[in-house]
Structures are given as C-alpha cells and as structure tokens.
C-alpha cells in the first residue's frame, strides 16, 4: 500500500509510480479542487487506467474531477480489478491533458460565473431578438430557473459541472441568465448574494438627487 499527502507527492508523481510500476489496484483520492471537495477512486490494471468513480460521476468525468485535486490525500491499494468493466481507454498523459484543459476552460468561465454553486435568475432585459437554444440548454435554463445550482443541474442531467458551466457561460453572455448568488453545497442555503439590495439603489437615487 502506498499513501500520503499530495503536498509531499504531486498527483503526477503518484500516477507515474503506479503507471511505471505497472500496478493493479485502486488509487483513492480525496481533496480540494476548483469545483469543491472531491473524493473517489481510479482503478488501474497493469499500470493503465480502466475506470474511475466519484460520488457524482463514473469514468472520464470522474477522472477529470479527481485529477484536479491540488491539495489532499492519496492511497493506493493493490486489488483484483477483474470484476471492473473498462470504461476508460485514454492513456495517463492524455487524461492529465484532458483534466488540465478542463481547468483552463474553467478559468475562462470564471469571468462570468463565480462558482459551481452559483444560483441564477432568468432575465429578459437586453436579450437578442432571436436566439437558438439546444435542448440541453433549455433543460439547463429550466432547472436553473427553479433555483438549482450548476452542480445540482449537472447531477440531474448527468453532465460534468464544466460542461454545464460552459452552457451557462453562453447563456449569461446572451443575458438570458443572471447570477444572483451562491449556495452552500452542504446546507443548500444561499450564503452569498451578488449585487445590492433594491432598497440600497433607492437610497442611492435619493442621495444623488440631494447632491
């Protein structure tokens, strides 16, 4: 068994050890990613990734989440994986590249969306006259309109948070959605509100009229 903190060994180094050693077993990972806390396992057969599982996803989406853990813990447990169906065919360098590109996409998305726990409202002010929306975008709008977060929508639609975020980014740019705040993912209550209370804007008007 191999275990430790990702402060001492980077995830790249751990993957390299498992891969170069042609190990078979389960790599358990737990820690913080830009999308919140993640926990799950990556399954290896003779040093190759064959499957992954988190409490949210399976296969590639789960690996993308797990490979973005920057701070946390790992544990490699040798085990028989013959009962696990292969769902991943990409090599480790390709999977690392995929996770990195998703992270880059997220950096761009962050311009318009604060967090995967953001909450939105529908807006009609200033939207273009004609818009073409895909069925998935309709589903996303409908669920976000009910007060769900990006993370919750991703779970409902069985999509990754990045893929939902990309659609939401486009919908925010089109001014169909407006971010109003963030929910605590554990408690499900609004913890941050974006913008200002209506009463404050009303006071602004009064104050400026008197200036």
């Amino acid at each position, binding site marked *: 068994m191999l275990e430790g903190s990702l402060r001492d060994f980077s995830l790249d180094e751990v993957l390299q050890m498992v891969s170069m050693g042609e190990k078979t077993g389960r790599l358990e990972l737990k820690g913080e990613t830009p999308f919140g806390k993640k926990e799950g396992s990556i399954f290896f057969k003779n040093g190759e990734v064959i499957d992954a599982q988190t409490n949210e996803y399976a296969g590639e989406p789960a690996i993308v989440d797990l490979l973005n853990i920057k701070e946390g813990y790992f544990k490699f447990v040798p085990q028989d994986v013959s009962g696990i169906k292969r769902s991943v065919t990409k090599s480790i360098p390709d999977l690392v590249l995929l996770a990195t590109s998703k992270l880059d996409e997220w950096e761009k998305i962050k311009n*318009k969306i604060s967090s995967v726990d953001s909450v939105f409202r529908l807006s009609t002010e200033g939207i273009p006259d004609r818009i073409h929306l895909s069925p998935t975008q309709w589903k996303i709008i409908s669920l976000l309109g009910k007060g769900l977060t990006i993370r919750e929508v991703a779970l409902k639609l069985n999509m990754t948070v990045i893929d939902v975020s990309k659609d939401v980014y486009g919908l925010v740019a089109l001014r169909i959605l407006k971010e*109003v705040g963030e929910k605590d993912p554990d408690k499900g209550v609004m913890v941050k509100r974006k*913008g200002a*209370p209506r009463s*404050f804007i009303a006071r602004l008007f009064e104050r400026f009229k008197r*200036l």
Partner: protein
Amino acid sequence: MKRYKIIISGPFAAGKTTFIQTITEIAPISTEAKTTRNDESRVKDSTTVAMDFGRITIDGENVLHIFGTPGQFRFNYMWSILGKDALGIIVIVDSGAKETFDDARDMINFFRVKTDAPILVALNQFDGKDGVSKEEIRKILNLPKWIPVVECNAKDKESVKNVLLTLFKLIMAQGNVY
C-alpha cells in the same frame, strides 16, 4: 459599513479622472504618473496608472465607491481587478477624439466578456470641441440595445449626476438587485 462600487472607465484622456473629481465628496485619490510616451505626452502631462478613487456616503450604513480605471490597454489587468463585483460600469468616450473610438470599443467588449454588470456609455463633450452625436457613437461602437449612451460634460456636476442616475436606473433594470 457596506461598500458598493461602480467603475468609471474609458480610453486615455476621455475625462475619467475629471468625472470622479466632479462628484466625489472626498479629495479624490489618484495614481498619476508622468506620461512618457510621445503620443500620450502630447495630449496630457500625466496619466492614471492604477486607479482613481472617489466616495459618496449614502447613509449611516452604506457607501458608494467610485473607481476610475487607467485608460490604456496595457493596464488592462487593473480593469479586471477593479471590475470584479462592480454594480455598474460607465465607459466615458470623448466625443471629439475619434482616434480613441477603437480603444473604447475594445474596452466595452472587454467588460462585456469579463463581467455581467450593466454598462453605460457617457459621451463626454469637452468645451468647444466638435464631436460625434449619440446616434453616431452608437453606430461607431456597434453598441447593442442594452447599452445606453448619455451625453455629458465631465466638469459639470449636474451632468455627471445625470449620468450616474441613468446608471442606477440601468442597475435596477438589468443589474444584480434583490
């Protein structure tokens, strides 16, 4: 004390610092440095390199901060920093400085990509200078319907007040209010 902020942006020498000086209740805080580039020093001696800052106390609990950005694209990292969580953005354009219109368009597009705050264009008409009209600047900058254009004189308090009141109406209609 709760602090809210709005951003005053616009190309080099559009009148941003003047706009803030005209309305702030405190002595404005400016980060001016001597212009060193020939094209800029012909226009003015100094330029904002980090930000301008003004303040209006709304009541015992709330204060409005007014941040002015540098005008040059090379300082655009400050646009991102200052623009974060702003209630609204005013882009000041000098109606007579046609050579800055491309910069103004880039700046508006920058804020459209980087924030979801309402944006307003204030067309600053410096005394005695010929300039383009509201309709012309709308076409030149290729503005969408949701970005209004308001004429103003950055040296005149009533005019500056009018621009800000228009922005507040815009924030009520398009902004993050709850």
